[in-house]
């Protein structure tokens, strides 16, 4: 199958790293989306590969477990013909106490052109970027940011709705501990959308809304969902119960689960996104997980294309 769109040359790209979306302009996001269009076409071919990054070495360095994000990056790099190796912290010399800075320097001495890092500690990719001579991509740092997830969320919305501006997006759940929420706040706001956050006061405290004063907050889910174009429930973790953030999953489900009844308050063509992995029957009712409103699998598919676009823009061609 012939590709419908060409991959545009990066003319306005000025990033050596991808750390968070608070550092991007609207034009740059548009460039990422149009580059992703081209990458999607490649993924529709029989041989899902182009030589754009041949000879380049991509390393994924994950200090936390992951299915989606890591495989997504690996496959993205491979689709561009790059060489990929994956390092898991627990089975590397990081378990012997090797520092982050030493690890980055070592990997770059071994020839890494880009290091994709996921780390439980906020700010780790910024430290890596300070000492890196190549490129660092943040695949999630603690509660702080997950820029590539937000980008694929935005792309998925754009694909479904035909546009990514003037929409009402509601993010529900464990906001204060969510890097997906934070990066999406930046990305969605930058493109001109209304973001509404919803959760109990322990997970969405008033102080959080003061940190992002242009965003709206709601404690009652039904109020938040009125006329929503997109609903994004976040995964609620068992640890939150243990930390005293919620009294029980039971009450959380009663108040915050996205179900058919609540969905009817949204626009009729509302879409459901979820960063995954989904706790079936907790943040989304089971009946909705696989309903036509849910674009969760489209997110995963788009994830590879978005990451291909980012790797291409960072490492492919001239800079």
């Amino acid at each position, binding site marked *: 199958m012939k590709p419908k769109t060409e991959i545009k040359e990066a003319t306005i790209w000025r990033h050596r790293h991808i750390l968070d979306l608070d550092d991007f302009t609207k034009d740059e996001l548009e460039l990422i989306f149009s580059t992703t269009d081209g990458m999607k076409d490649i993924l529709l071919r029989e041989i899902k590969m182009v030589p754009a990054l041949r000879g380049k070495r991509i390393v994924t360095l994950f200090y936390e477990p992951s299915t989606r994000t890591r495989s997504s990056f690996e496959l993205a790099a491979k689709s561009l013909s790059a060489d990929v190796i994956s390092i898991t912290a627990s089975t590397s010399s990081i378990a012997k106490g090797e*520092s*982050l*800075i030493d690890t980055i320097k070592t990997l770059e001495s071994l020839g890494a052109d880009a290091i994709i890092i996921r*780390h439980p*500690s*906020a*700010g*780790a990719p*910024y*430290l890596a970027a300070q000492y890196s001579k190549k490129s660092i991509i943040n695949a999630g*740092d*603690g*509660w*702080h*940011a997950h820029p590539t997830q937000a980008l694929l969320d935005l792309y998925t919305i754009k694909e479904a709705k035909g546009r990514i501006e003037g929409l009402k997006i509601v993010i529900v759940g464990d906001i*204060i501990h969510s*890097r997906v929420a*934070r990066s999406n706040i930046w990305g969605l706001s930058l493109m001109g959308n209304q973001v509404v956050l919803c959760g109990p006061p322990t997970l969405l405290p008033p*102080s*959080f809304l*003061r*940190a*992002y004063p242009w965003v709206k907050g709601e404690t009652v889910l039904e109020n938040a969902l009125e006329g929503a174009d997109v609903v994004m429930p976040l995964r609620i973790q068992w640890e939150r119960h243990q930390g005293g953030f919620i009294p029980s999953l039971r009450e959380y489900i009663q108040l915050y689960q996205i179900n058919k009844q609540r969905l009817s308050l949204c626009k009729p063509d509302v879409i459901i996104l979820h960063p995954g992995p989904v706790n079936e029957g907790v943040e989304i009712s089971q009946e909705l997980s696989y309903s036509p409103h849910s674009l969760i699998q489209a997110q995963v598919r788009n994830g590879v294309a978005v990451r291909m676009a980012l790797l291409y823009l960072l490492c492919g061609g001239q800079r």
Partner: protein
Amino acid sequence: MKSLLIKGGYIIDPGRNFEGKKDLLIVGDRIVWIGEGIPPQPPYIVIPASGLIVCPGLIDLHCHLREPGYEEKETIATGTRAAAAGGFTTVCCMPNTNPPLDNSATINYVLKKAEREGVVRVLPIACLTKGGRGEELVEMMELSQAGAVAFSDDAHPLKNSRILRRALEYSLMANKPIFKHCEDTQLSNDGVMNEGWVSLRLGLKGIPNAAEEVAVFRDIALAQLTGARIHLLHLSTAGSVELVRRAKEKGIPITAEVTPHHLTLTEEAVLGYNTLAKVNPPLRTMKDVKALIEGLKEGVIDAIATDHAPHQDIDKMVEFEYAPFGISGLETALASLLDLVYKGEIDLMTLLSKLTSQPAKIIGRESSLKEGSIADITIFDPKEEWVVEKEKLFSKGKNTPLIGKKLVGKVMATLVRGEIVYQDAKLKLEVR
């Protein structure tokens, strides 16, 4: 006996509330003459102090010299050299060493080391409980006799109110103040910076103001109950200032200190995940800074102390969450504080009192420039501009967010017992 003449300087002596142009003559370890015109007893070495401020040696109630146990971060030798470069002639060192200063052997060790290798006076502070574990009292009388000037739970805030009460009651006999670190660790709960918009955006666990204020309130209540003297370490919030204000109005025996960094920096210094700005208690908001300055001016806060906390470079070159708390502050304290004077926030006499006569009172010492007093003297140039450079710092701890910053105000000479223990390269002595 050698004589030293400090000539042409502007004396500011908060201890006697005196300021004016006077010359000082030092013979041996004492000031023998303060006056104008021709001084007695030549020959002498002259320190040309025209354009410079001459004040009693600065006293730091709170610093970490790391020895014994953490000599890679600092030693008594390097720490006291840093103190001298910062204009401090006396430092009180905290007991969270390894082994901790909870027995007379370790107190003696510090005193002996300081005698042999230190260049300024070192007064040890002993632990409040054995090992800092918060369970058993230390032998306060023995430690007091061995030379401890105060007792403290710094870095291990005492949780058990009942044990704290007993410690306070027992301390009445030793007649030494308790230097109290105020932190409710259940509320601070592994936080790494101030809880506020910065921590929320950076995705870092925050330490709310309440974590300090809850402890301040409790400690004030226990000071009232027992009548013991509590000195509150490194206050950082507006709420704490208000609590101390009301306590003093009621006549409760509380004193308090604040650090230079809490008077001049806010939580925004952390942006970009700057571990050099990671400190406990954390840098807070402008509202807190303003309240601390007000408290200082009113006398609600008695003293300024550095909480000098040196760490190796590699200790701080890690993920923000894992970096140790602490700012290396002895050498930048005076200059960073002078900025408050230049901004019109506080006058120089009041500022210097917080570094000399006020801290002296808290530990029962003298601080003034009188004929007959011991010559602990600080001489500084209030106009000298300099840039904070890592390589030029005497401390092993280069961990200050002020690296690369330009400061105004530099120590030109520091004298302890009449000996010059620090001299700036620009200061040229003359012999007459």
